[in-house]
């Protein structure tokens, strides 16, 4: 039984990363119906900016807590700004073009980001400084590290904050209006362009948080890390019902649990089969996903 709960803890940890990245996919899709395939790479860029910041601050002997805070905020700001710039340069001119053009552009952006980081940082692995303690609790044979608790709590807090932002604030209401009908929203005086930019900024900043957390927890980053995680997070978004924020959170956690149970009870070599099997299954059986009932009202 302790093994079962161990898998649950591991699945929640893995799923937290998927959920944070899945939110970016789902928000962008909800607003402009674009599957932003570059989103996994923004997660990777966030991890690299965090690495640069943290190693620089560590070299300057900045106290650890302060260094972490600055790194996180800087990574969110820079990655968010990058997401904004990508929207400006690559997506905005194509908003009225056929869907396929913008989808292919997203793939191009993904390649550009990966190869840009490859050129800047090289093909090898970069490693974060070891700052998280490996200590934790032993609850009846189930090992939980404080770092895992931190990751799970932080991602749930961020997801809740986003949920309340979208559902309880004026700007969030405008975003939802935009998701329902862009033209009607514009007629109501909503600044559509600004809101699309805000969405990209928020999604990218969340991906940056996931990237920095991944770097801190797993320590190892490289230019290709966004690909695998991006695809799985996309699957999570589809599973939850793409365009739906609580759906992305639930989808991320479910995919994480599926990965943990699959690797634990069957074999890690089948992970991709399980995850993408779910993707195909959802697309065939219930394309709207778990939470995607209300097609009219997304997010």
């Amino acid at each position, binding site marked *: 039984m302790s093994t079962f709960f161990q898998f649950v803890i*591991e699945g929640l*940890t893995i799923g937290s990363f998927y959920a944070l990245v899945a939110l970016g996919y789902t928000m962008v899709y909800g607003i402009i119906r674009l599957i932003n395939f570059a989103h996994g790479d923004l997660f990777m860029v966030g991890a690299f900016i965090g690495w640069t910041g943290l190693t620089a601050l560590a070299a300057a002997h900045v106290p650890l807590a302060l260094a972490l805070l600055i790194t996180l905020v800087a990574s969110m700001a820079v990655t968010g700004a990058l997401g904004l710039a990508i929207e400006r340069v690559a997506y905005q001119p194509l908003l009225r073009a056929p869907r396929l053009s913008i989808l292919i552009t997203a793939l191009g952006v993904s390649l550009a980001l990966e190869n840009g980081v490859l050129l800047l940082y090289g093909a090898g692995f970069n490693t974060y400084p070891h700052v998280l303690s*490996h200590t934790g609790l*032993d609850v009846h044979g189930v090992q939980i590290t404080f770092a895992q608790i931190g990751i799970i709590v932080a991602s749930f807090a961020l997801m809740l904050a986003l949920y309340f932002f979208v559902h309880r604030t004026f700007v969030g209401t405008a975003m939802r209006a935009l998701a329902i009908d862009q033209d009607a929203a514009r007629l109501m005086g909503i600044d559509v362009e600004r809101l699309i930019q805000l969405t990209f900024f928020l999604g990218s900043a969340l991906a940056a948080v996931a990237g920095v957390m991944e770097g801190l927890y797993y320590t190892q980053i490289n230019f*290709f890390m966004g690909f*695998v995680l991006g695809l799985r997070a996309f699957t999570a978004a589809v599973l939850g019902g793409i365009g739906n924020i609580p759906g992305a959170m639930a989808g991320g956690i479910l995919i994480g649990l599926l990965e943990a149970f699959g690797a634990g009870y069957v074999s890690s070599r089948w992970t991709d089969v399980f995850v993408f099997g779910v993707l195909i299954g959802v697309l065939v059986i219930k394309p709207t996903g778990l939470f995607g009932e209300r097609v009219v009202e997304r997010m």
Partner: protein
Amino acid sequence: MIAQKNGSLGASRVLRQTTIAAIAALAVLAGVAPGSAQSQTIKIGVPVPLSGSSANAGTDIVNGAKLAAARINTAGGVLGKQIEIVPEDDACDAQTAVQAAQKLVDAGVVAVAGGYCSSAALPELTTFHRAGIPYVLDASTNPKLTEMGYDNVFRTIGRDDEQGPFAASFIKNSLHAKRAAVINDNTTYSKGLADNTVEALKKGGVDVVYDDAITPGQMDYSPTLTHVAALKPDVIYYTGYFSEAGLLVKEARQLGLKMTFMGGDATNDPTLMKTAGPAANDMIITTAPLAQFLSAAHGYVDDYTKAYGQGPGPYSVYEYDAVGVTAKAIADAKSATPAAITAALHKISNYPGATGTIGFNPKGDRSVAVYITIIVRDGNFAPYQKQDANGHWMAMK
């Protein structure tokens, strides 16, 4: 306007064709020039990746070859002639490798000592076999290379299927483990090493409680490790690459697992310690020895560091021996023709190389392969244990 454009285009085409012709003529001349100098030097070809992601390893190997040639040449050369090293870039790519091998044949090399990626060395070997030129491999460990039935192939390094039995012997006779878990990453190399190890472990009576693959490229392998831990192995042997190995050993220690963690030779990379931090300590790796850990190679390490201002890398010492043993064969044969060198290489039985005594079995593999175990101590690799001639395990100094 259009006519004018065409006119200028035509002119530029003529110019371009002239240029190409001139370059071609120069190339022919350049090709002829070294050919005419053929009688003054004995040329040994070195096909290695000099571009792409393995370029560093290739450069190290060429440096090792040049050091060997310099040593032989200052001692008077071979048969009164100087050894000339001819490097060629194979880019770790099968197609480029064929062209590189052909270039070396055209340049008039009498023997080849080099190779890095097995996938590139294989097509090179076929080209050299057709030309009747001996190929002494320094770093390509795929068993297939010496299983082609060619008589012109030799190896100064061990082969992948020798590492498995070595690792199994260490697990059984040095660690005295009763239960072992073997994890691979489903790549050809890793799966092959895992299969050979599992087979040897079972033959030796060690209980293999887990033998399965992980999906490389992920970050979290904790579920697999939780599963493995429940089977209570005394040792985990991971046969994949260093990046996943670093994550695995770190996550294993985070889960509070205390058993010995071992890796194959692809985990022999400092990134392992950077990823795992203190968790990597006491991890044991089976590997072909680095030059630093071979007492006979200390002089080589010093010379290399003095000449190039950096360490010799993992494979250049095997290239140093590959060139050395080739020169010895030329001296033994008293002839610098490829056929005579091949025949003489087959007769080599105890050449005193920097990596130990070198002799070749009928397939061309090194008759006594060298593997050692190294251990991570305080974030660095340190020599751990080796096998003596009777198979007993002893500590390395």
